[in-house]
């Protein structure tokens, strides 16, 4: 329906045709569609999140056995908010509650990877099937990665001494009413939207140019089946990109429509969200470089494997 209105606007009302018209059509159609879906999905996720805070997750994970803990931590990572500035209190809080470090890492991997922006963008650009596949493989990476780090990581590499304790002072949190929760979710949604809408515009704009002008065989040659290293390169490129995830995804969507393999695209997006240099710098305050290196190495490897598996089956 929305597509028809844009069709009418560009081709009939303005009477345009040719490559530029196609690019403009794509730009208007995509931008508005993505903005709308972003607001909708981020709102839904934000609203669900008002029911789960990290303290609740910590209490729940306390005393769970290893593998169960990893699975639950990864699942909770999807619905709890995460920003790299809260990585340290989170890590220490989990340690304090005697949650094994492998389980903590599962959460630390899953939470940023399955964040609302990534899910919303994937859903609006690629559809629910791809979004679901992304979440599933993201969870698997978090579970296996966290478990592996728990097994081979050394406790000495955690540089701060955490005293385990059961109680944590007095807490009297006010229970919010549904009305307050919905307002809070909207405020959160708007905060996120304000941060990313321009990036999305930029991404879709450049994507629109790509769409109209870059030949498909060129893209396929470098990012498709013609290049066996594409997944590896995509992951390496994804690590330094963090804030620009909102701009990168519309571009990736265009590239996939031009022949970039989907596994390569998914790996790239996982690398953008799960492995961020700012987070590594923050974690350096409490973790030895060895452990952070292991974290990046294992997750990076997991993402590369996901990419190749995807490319092989899809």
């Amino acid at each position, binding site marked *: 329906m929305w597509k028809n209105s844009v069709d009418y606007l560009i081709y009939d009302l303005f009477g345009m045709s040719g490559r530029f018209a196609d690019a403009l059509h794509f730009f208007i159609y995509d931008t508005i569609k993505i903005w709308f879906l972003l607001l909708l999905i981020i709102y839904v996720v934000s609203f669900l999140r008002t029911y789960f*805070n*990290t*303290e609740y997750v*910590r209490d729940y994970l306390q005393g769970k056995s290893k593998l169960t803990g990893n699975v639950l931590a990864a699942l909770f990572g999807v619905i709890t*908010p995460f*920003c790299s*500035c*809260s990585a*340290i*209190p*989170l890590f*220490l*809080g*989990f340690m*304090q509650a005697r949650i094994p470090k492998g389980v903590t890492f599962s959460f630390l991997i899953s939470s940023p990877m399955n964040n609302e922006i990534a899910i919303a963008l994937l859903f609006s650009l690629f559809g629910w099937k791809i979004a679901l596949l992304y979440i599933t493989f993201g969870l698997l990476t978090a579970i296996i990665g966290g478990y592996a780090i728990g097994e081979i990581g050394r406790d000495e590499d955690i540089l701060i001494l*955490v005293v385990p304790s059961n*109680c*944590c*002072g*007095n*807490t*009297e*949190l*006010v229970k919010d009413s549904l009305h307050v929760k919905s307002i*809070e979710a909207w405020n959160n949604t708007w905060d996120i939207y304000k941060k990313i809408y321009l990036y999305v515009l930029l991404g879709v704009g450049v994507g629109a140019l790509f769409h109209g002008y870059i030949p498909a065989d060129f893209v396929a040659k470098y990012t498709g089946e013609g290049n066996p290293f594409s997944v590896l390169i995509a992951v390496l490129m994804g690590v330094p990109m963090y804030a620009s995830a909102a701009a990168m995804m519309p571009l990736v969507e265009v590239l996939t429509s031009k022949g970039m393999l989907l596994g390569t695209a998914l790996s790239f997006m996982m690398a953008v969200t799960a492995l961020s240099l700012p987070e590594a710098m923050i974690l350096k305050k409490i973790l030895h470089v060895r452990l952070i290196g292991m974290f990046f190495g294992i997750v990076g490897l997991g993402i590369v494997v996901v990419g190749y598996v995807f490319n092989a089956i899809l």
Partner: protein
Amino acid sequence: MKIEVLGTGCAKCKALEELVKKAVAKKGIFAQVEKVEDITKIMEYGVMNTPGLVVNGIVKSTGKLLNEEEIIALLD
């Protein structure tokens, strides 16, 4: 009354501190407002989502940037 704002330096934490000071002034009560940036002290309260608001040693809110009315309500 002792009010502590827990936060390691995120933008929301600074904003909450300002709002708490305003709320105290508006309410016209005598209160000591302190910003707690030491991570071990924050952990002692068991707070993982900053900013946190602590009134007389009791955690009242975590991970939220409250507005002025909400803060005033918590100071009762």
